[in-house]
C-alpha cells in the first residue's frame, strides 16, 4: 500500500466516521436517557437528507449563494427534530416506556417502515444529487492527495463540536443535570418537581435532530435514494452497540474504528468491505457483550 492509497483510505474513513458518529450520537443519547432503541432514527437521517435537498433546491434556485446550504442543513435538522421527533415521542413512545423492550422495538420499527413509505410518496424512488455545499468549500491537498474540505475538515469538525458540546451540556448545565437525574431515577426526579415528560420529549427532539443533521450533512456527499435510512440505522447501531449503549465518547471511538476499518478494507480487501463494520461489532461483542466502554450494569448516560 503506497502513501496515496493509505491517505485516501484514512481520509475516507475519517469523513465516513464523522457522519456515522453524528447519527449514532442521537441514537445513543435517546437510548441512554430513555432506554429505547429507536429504529426510526434511520428514517430521521434519510428525511434530514431529503429535506436538505428540497430546501437547498428551492432557495438556491432563487439565485441565493451556495453557502446558504449550511444554515439550511441546520434548519432541516431542527425541522426533523421538532416536526417528526416531537410527535413520535408525544404520540407513541410516551405510552410504551414501561412496556417490554420487544414491543418498544416493534413500535419504532413500525414508525421506520411508515416513514420509509412516506419518503417514497413524497420524493419518489429516483435518486437526488445536491453537491453544491460540497463544491462551495473547494478542495485541499495533503501530501499530494486532493480531498474535499467539506469531508476532510468540516464533517470531523462538526462531529467534534457536537461531541464536546453534548458532553458539556450533560455534565455541566442545569438542563443536562436534570436530564441525567431523570435518567437515573424517574420517580425521584418527579418527587422533586422535575417534569419528566418534558425532559424526555426534549431529549427525543434533540436526538432526532441529530439524526436529521447526520442526513443533512451526508446529503452533498452521496446520492439520496430510498433505503439510505436502513443502511444508516444498521451501521450506527453497530457503532453504538460496539461502544456500549449510551456511551457518548465511546461511540466516537468506535465510529472511527468502524469507519477506518471499512475504508481500508475498500482498498485492501474490497469483497468484504461492507461486512467489516459488522465483523468488528461481532468480535467486540463476543469478548465484551456490554460493549467496549459499557459496564455490565448498563450504566446510563
Amino acid at each position, binding site marked *: 500500500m503506497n502513501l496515496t492509497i493509505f491517505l485516501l483510505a484514512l481520509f475516507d474513513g475519517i469523513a465516513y466516521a464523522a457522519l456515522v458518529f453524528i447519527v449514532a450520537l442521537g441514537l445513543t443519547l435517546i437510548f441512554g436517557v430513555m432506554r429505547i432503541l429507536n429504529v426510526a432514527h434511520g428514517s430521521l437521517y434519510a428525511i434530514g437528507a431529503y429535506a436538505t435537498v428540497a430546501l437547498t433546491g428551492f432557495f438556491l434556485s432563487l439565485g441565493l449563494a451556495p453557502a446558504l446550504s449550511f444554515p439550511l442543513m441546520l434548519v432541516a435538522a431542527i425541522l426533523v427534530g421538532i416536526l417528526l421527533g416531537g410527535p413520535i415521542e408525544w404520540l407513541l413512545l410516551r405510552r410504551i416506556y414501561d412496556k417490554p423492550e420487544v414491543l418498544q422495538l416493534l413500535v419504532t420499527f413500525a414508525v421506520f417502515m411508515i416513514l420509509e413509505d412516506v419518503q417514497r410518496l413524497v420524493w419518489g424512488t429516483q435518486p437526488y444529487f445536491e453537491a453544491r455545499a460540497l463544491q462551495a468549500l473547494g478542495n485541499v491537498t495533503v501530501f499530494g492527495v486532493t480531498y474535499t474540505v467539506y469531508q476532510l475538515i468540516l464533517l470531523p469538525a462538526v462531529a467534534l463540536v457536537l461531541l464536546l458540546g453534548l458532553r458539556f451540556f450533560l455534565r*455541566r*448545565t*442545569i*438542563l443536562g443535570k*436534570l436530564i441525567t*437525574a431523570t435518567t*437515573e431515577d424517574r420517580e425521584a426526579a*418527579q*418527587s422533586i*418537581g422535575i417534569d419528566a415528560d418534558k425532559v424526555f420529549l426534549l431529549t427525543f427532539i434533540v436526538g432526532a435532530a441529530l439524526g436529521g443533521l447526520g442526513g443533512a450533512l451526508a446529503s452533498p456527499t452521496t446520492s439520496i435514494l430510498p433505503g439510505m435510512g436502513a443502511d444508516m440505522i444498521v451501521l450506527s447501531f453497530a457503532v453504538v452497540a460496539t461502544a456500549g449503549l449510551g456511551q457518548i465518547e465511546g461511540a466516537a471511538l468506535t465510529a472511527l474504528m468502524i469507519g477506518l476499518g471499512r475504508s481500508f478494507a475498500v482498498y485492501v480487501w474490497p469483497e468484504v468491505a461492507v461486512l467489516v463494520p459488522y465483523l468488528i461489532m461481532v468480535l467486540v461483542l463476543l469478548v465484551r457483550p456490554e460493549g467496549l466502554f459499557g459496564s455490565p450494569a448498563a450504566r446510563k448516560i
Partner: protein
Amino acid sequence: MSAPLLETRNLMIRFGGVIAANDVSLKIEAGRNLAIIGPNGAGKTTFLNICTGWIKPKSGQVLFEGEDITPLPPRKIVRRGVARAFQIPQLFTEHTALENLLISAAAREGMRHPLRDLSRVPEREEMMHLLEMVNCADVAHRTVDELSEGQRKLIDIAVALALRPRLLLMDEPTSGVASSQKHKIMEILIRALAEARVTSVFVEHDMGIVGDYADEVAVWNAGNVQLRGTPTEILEHPDVIRDVIGEVA
C-alpha cells in the same frame, strides 16, 4: 380563621379487598409536627402518597392552604410546597451530595436558565447552608453512593428542603439507621425543619422517637385515624398500648 396547612376531606381508596383509606378527614396545622403511628397495613404510607399525588383517591379531597390539590400530579404538588421524603432516600446516587441539592434547586426554579453551569448557580450558597443545617457540609463533594445510610437520610431531607416546602411528609425518617443513631438523626432533622420553618408529618414505628419529637400523634387503624392527641395522651392510652405498642414490642 385561616385555613389549616393541610386538610383532607373524606379520602377513600381500596386496593383489592383492603380499604387503605376509609373516610380520612384530618387537619394539619402549621408548626405542629405530627407523627403517624399504627400497625402495618393500616394505610399510613397510602395517606402520605395521596397527599403528595402519587396515589389518587377514589373519592375525597386534599386541600393545601385551602386550595384543592387532589387532581394535581406529584411534581405540581411539590411546587405548591408539599415535599416528600421516602423510606429509602431517593437520591441521585451517581451525583455528589451538593449536586443533588443543586438539582433540587434547579427543579424548584423551573429551568429558567437551562444552559447555566450547574456549579455556578446562585443557589450554591443556599444549598451549602442547607448541608450545614443537616451536619453534612463535610461530605458535600462526595457522591451519594459513598455515604452512610444516616448521611443519605439527612441529605434526602436537605434535598426536600431545597424545594422550599412548607410541609414535609416523611416515611420513617430513621428506618434503616442503627438504633444508636436514630435520636441523633432526628435531633438534627427536627432542628433543621424548625430553622427552615417547615412543618412535618412523619410515619414512625419507634415510640421513643414519637415521644421525643412529635407535637401531636395520630393513630392509624384500618385505613382511618383512630385517635389523635399529644404524645403523652396517646402513648399512655390503653388502646394504643394494646394495639400498637404491644405489637411493636
